[in-house]
């Protein structure tokens, strides 16, 4: 083998701690380092001796410290934890021990196996055919058209109500005031003045009203207009008004001296 070996190869062939130290910084944390050490044992991770692995890790940390290499805190925390695990594993088996050191060792083993499995899976994924490298899709597909078609919602009721509303509005807008039967004031004045000129003495206002008033509303209009006409003629000095008491008949007499 004349080709320069890659690092993992060299670990496998010569798992000396000094060589590992040269690679410090190549690991993604303590678990990664542990996995590298475990692989260096060249046994199935399921069969690995956790005790031997712990020793290797502790040796590595010790040597690194001896070389005054900066060690990240988590490597030291892991070292402390592994030293603790090692002491538990070496003590006579205590069935009451909590946590159970054998179980802890199994969990560590499980974690290493799982990390290795995931690392392997990642490589197998990358080895698969990839889109944009092995397979290609059409770069400029024409695309599928989705036409948005509006469906209008309008019920029969809506339609009829709308027409009802229009009709109502329309009748309103063309509303014509019905021509009511009224006697205009001008007409009343003219009429009263004429009739008054022919009378001589006090005469009841009602006597001046037309006698054939069948339309009641017209009759009221005539009465009102004639009363106002009487007031107007009095103001003009053409007539004199008199009333004996409240609600008594209103009397009217012409004045000729004005």
């Amino acid at each position, binding site marked *: 083998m004349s080709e320069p070996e890659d690092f993992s190869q060299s670990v496998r062939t010569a798992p000396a701690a000094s060589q590992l130290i040269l690679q410090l910084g190549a690991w993604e944390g303590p678990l990664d380092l542990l996995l590298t050490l475990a692989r260096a044992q060249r046994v199935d991770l399921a069969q690995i001796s956790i005790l031997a692995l712990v020793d290797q890790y502790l040796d590595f940390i010790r040597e690194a410290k001896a070389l005054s290499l900066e060690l990240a805190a988590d490597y030291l925390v892991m070292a402390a934890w592994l030293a603790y695990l090692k002491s538990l594993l070496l003590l006579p088996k205590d069935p009451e021990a909590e946590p159970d050191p054998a179980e802890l060792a199994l969990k560590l083993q499980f974690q290493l196996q799982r990390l290795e499995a995931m690392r392997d899976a990642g490589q197998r994924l990358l080895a698969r055919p990839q889109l944009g490298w092995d397979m*290609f*899709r*059409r*770069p*400029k597909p*024409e695309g*599928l*058209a*989705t*036409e*948005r*078609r*509006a*469906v*209008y*919602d*309008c019920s*029969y009721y*809506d*339609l*009829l*109500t*709308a*027409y*009802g*509303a*229009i*009709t*109502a*509005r*329309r*009748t*309103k*807008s063309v*509303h014509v*005031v019905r021509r009511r039967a009224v006697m205009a004031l001008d007409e009343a004045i003219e009429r009263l003045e004429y009739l008054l000129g022919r009378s001589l003495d006090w005469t009841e206002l009602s006597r001046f009203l037309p006698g054939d008033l069948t339309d009641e509303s017209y009759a009221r209009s005539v009465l009102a207009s004639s009363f106002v006409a009487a007031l107007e003629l009095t103001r003009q000095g053409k007539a004199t008004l008199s009333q004996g008491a409240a609600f008594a008949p209103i009397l009217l007499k012409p004045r000729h001296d004005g």
Partner: protein
Amino acid sequence: MPDLALTRALEAILFAAEAPLTLSELTRFVGERGDLLPALRALSASYEPRGINLVERGGRWQFQTAPDLGHYLRTARETVKKLSRAAVETLAVIAYHEPVTRPEIEQIRGVAVSGGTIDVLMEAGWVRPAGRRETPGRPLQYATTPEFLAHFNLANRRDLPGLADLKAAGLLDHEPPRELPLPLGGREE
């Protein structure tokens, strides 16, 4: 079919190409392999019955969907829209007074009718242009369509209730009020 490996390569190249390719462009991709034309022709023939065809257009080869399948590449997605009040009223006026011109609709509604309102009704398929009125200006008339009758479940226009019916049904809400009309201009909604 000639060389299967060549045919597959041509297939993949033409599929992934950004634009139709000439013979010389194809040669650049597959390398010198002799005359590509027989392979392309065989490939094209093998696609003939499929929904995708391989065609030559002006010396350039390309895949395209079979010309008879265009209608599958579109789909309609329906969205329900509520008609505006102006549109419902306009529709009602057209239904009751058809054929009716736009000025007439405006006069009846007492409001200017925007072109968009009638467009919406035509889009809905309920209103159609119904010839021109033979009066000065020859205004366009509008009428309802058979779809209008179908949508409102009417046998014909005579099924529309008359004013008396509307009043009886309480749809002609109130009688014209007794008081004088307010001295207002055009009343818009």
